[in-house]
């Protein structure tokens, strides 16, 4: 259990990477922007890849009536997400420690993983809902009101994952360092569970 508990602790601590590294990255490349404009989405807010990227994305978005990219205070998520992560890290470390001292069973590791996964999926769902709203809830007085070939108004929601062509822009949305650290951490907690499980079998 010692090894498993340690893995559990390291796994949960890796989530702290989210405070330093972006969770998600969206890049916009166009003929006029050979150096793509980029947004880094952190759990505490959205920042430009380069200093003026957000300002320049907003500048372009005003033509199609999109709202400006939200500041941290504009979205409750940027207040709640860090708290949730801190709680989950504390919980994970606690479970790990208790595991080391054989106070809880390895099943708790799986319990933590399931809770984290549920929260993660909820977070993604929320993020996707925001992307959809951000890209489709447009200013009715937008300078350019474009329609799809079928006549419905064109929307500009960036993809949650992967690439999409939007007007002159190639938009690519991918998990970033913070997310990869989180995924690795979560995998470690599963691994902790597995280690705990095998050790138990041998006893």
């Amino acid at each position, binding site marked *: 259990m010692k090894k498993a508990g340690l893995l559990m602790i390291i796994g949960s601590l890796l989530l702290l990477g989210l405070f330093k590294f972006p969770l998600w990255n969206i890049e916009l490349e166009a003929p006029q922007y050979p150096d793509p404009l980029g947004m880094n989405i952190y759990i505490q807010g959205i920042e430009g890849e380069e*200093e003026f990227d957000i300002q*320049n994305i907003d500048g372009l978005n005003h033509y199609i009536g999109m709202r400006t990219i939200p500041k941290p205070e504009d979205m409750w998520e940027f207040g709640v997400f860090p708290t949730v992560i801190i709680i989950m890290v504390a919980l994970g470390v606690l479970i790990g420690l208790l595991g080391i001292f054989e106070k809880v069973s390895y099943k708790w590791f799986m319990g933590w993983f399931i809770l984290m996964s549920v929260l993660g999926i909820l977070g993604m769902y929320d993020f996707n809902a925001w992307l959809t709203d951000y890209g489709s809830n447009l200013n009715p007085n937008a300078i350019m009101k474009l329609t799809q070939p079928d006549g419905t108004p064109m929307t500009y929601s960036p993809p949650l994952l992967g690439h999409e062509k939007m007007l002159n822009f190639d938009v690519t949305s991918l998990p970033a360092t913070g997310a990869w650290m989180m995924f690795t951490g979560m995998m470690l907690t599963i691994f902790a569970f597995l280690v705990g499980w095998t050790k138990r079998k041998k006893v």
Partner: protein
Amino acid sequence: MKTYSYLTMTFIVLATVITGCKDQGENSNGALTSNAAERVYVEPGKFDEFYAFLSGGFSGQLAVYGIPSGRLLKVVPVFSQDPEKAYGYNEETKPMLNTTHGFIPWDDTHHPDMSQTKGVLDGRWVFMNGNNTPRIARVDLTTFETAEIIEIPNSAGNHSSSFVTENTEYVIAGTRFAVPIPQKDMPIKDYKGNFKASLSFLSVDQESGEMDLSFQIRLPGFAYDLVHPGRDKSHGWVFITTYNTEEAHTLLEVNASQNDKDFIAAVNWKKAEEYIKQGKFKTEKAEYAHNIYDEDTHMATSTIKNEVRVLDASELPGLVYFLPTPKSPHGCDVDPTGEYIVGNGKLSADLTVHSFTKMLDAIENKKFDGEAYNIPILNFEDVLGGTVKQPGLGPLHTEFDGKGNAYTTFFISSEVVKWKLGTWEILDRKPTYYSPGHLSIPGGNSRKPWGKYLLAMNKITKDRYLPTGPEVSQSAQLYDITGEKMELLSDFPTIGEPHYASMVPAELIQSKSKKIYRLDENKHPYATTSDANVKVEREGNEVHVYMTMIRSHLNPDNIEGVKVGDKVYFHLTNLEQDYDVPHGFAVIGAENSELLVMPGETETTVWYPKKVGVWPFYCTDFCSALHQEMSGYIRVSPADSNTELTWSLGD
């Protein structure tokens, strides 16, 4: 896909070359048709290997080309007004062209020379001389804008300028036309002995690049033609060719060509520094303008200075020596080791090369052959390093490849000749089209040449391009000099008349090139850094419009309350912080030029409303899909009307 298009491209190029061979193989176009096209072809989207800064000659500007493609990248306005960029037209840059002769909108630019560190070109600044109204400019290579212009007092025909010492200690400026110093009303025929020349030393602040006229050396009234600071072992000296040592004042083409030998003046500037330290200078009254462009305020200021420290070469021993050099030498060129000083005697059949070591020895052992105005003339045979025999007709300038070879242009026989330092043998000669003046090799005037290309700048073009009436552009020719023999690669037209070029590997500059000016560092007194500060103010009959520009509107775009007889200042701030999104501004009937405002910058234009009516203004630079909409109206009421001063955007 990429490899495929690569192959296609190569194939097309090859095909062109082969076809070229067939069509022009027997032609006298001069180019080796083997694979010259490939060597100057820069793929779309790819960069050139070198920057070339060519003076614009009588255009007064500095042209920036990419080498080997010969593509024109930018024309930097320096001494001439440029309506395209509002240089010398907007309120901010007018002071740049201020002189003690007043506002001078033009000059004749000759010798761009780059700053150096330890004898190697370093890509910080390009200095360039205005020949007509003597001035030296400094162009900043992070912004590619003229950052400073300093007028040179006691000078006329500022030709032997603006040459940079090994660590950019000084920019040196000489005088081609001797004049009375101080200027006075006197008969021209009394030139001899009364007219004088000045050699100016401008110190350079290594951080800001700011120049200061440190001191001048007073010299006899010869014509000082070209300058080359010593390199490496001869660092601390500067060499200057002279002609008209006859001191003729009329029909110079005959009267200044009589002496069998003129001089190369060798000036010991380290000695000059010592004399300055010892206080052996005279402080003389001399008015000159010093104009500085401040990148934070986006404005230039012009200050008139009043004094200069002068060292008299005739009174201070050890400061100047004369090296006899045949027949009105033009170019003066020092090889990368600093040992050889080439005097390009333009009327001589041979090329004279002096030896620095021999010169020091001749000075030490007083091997003199008389004196001129108390300045020792060294014995010709005792300083001669070697002679290149019968190299061509009319040698003008020499540069070096760093591999022991020298390359000299010959104006009259219209060719470039490659010869070997030390053995003085001629290795190769190639025709140029036609009559080259200067030539340039990247770093070819410094300790460290990048001896890959040679650019010949020709004075005569004739049939090289499609004809464009009586006036045709000047022409430059690019040679590959990596092999034993030079190979002509391409021709390209140039602006004005390039006299010299400074070429440097692109990587020394490209990463330092600015993309925007930061709005949060804009200290222009009339800047409007946010839409909240947009306003229009009246002070008597002066109206100040604080206007912003961003894709795709001008704010305000409706202005009322301006009257006939007002003087309207439009202060435009470009709020963009995105690369390559300038906005322009023009208003009907403006007597000056447009404005072209870079992101984060503020510029001001003055407009005199003369007619009652509603007049449009608009953005002149196609900035965005809604550029055409980026416009507005200003209402001009009669002089005695009471129309209220109002401004708005989007009601």
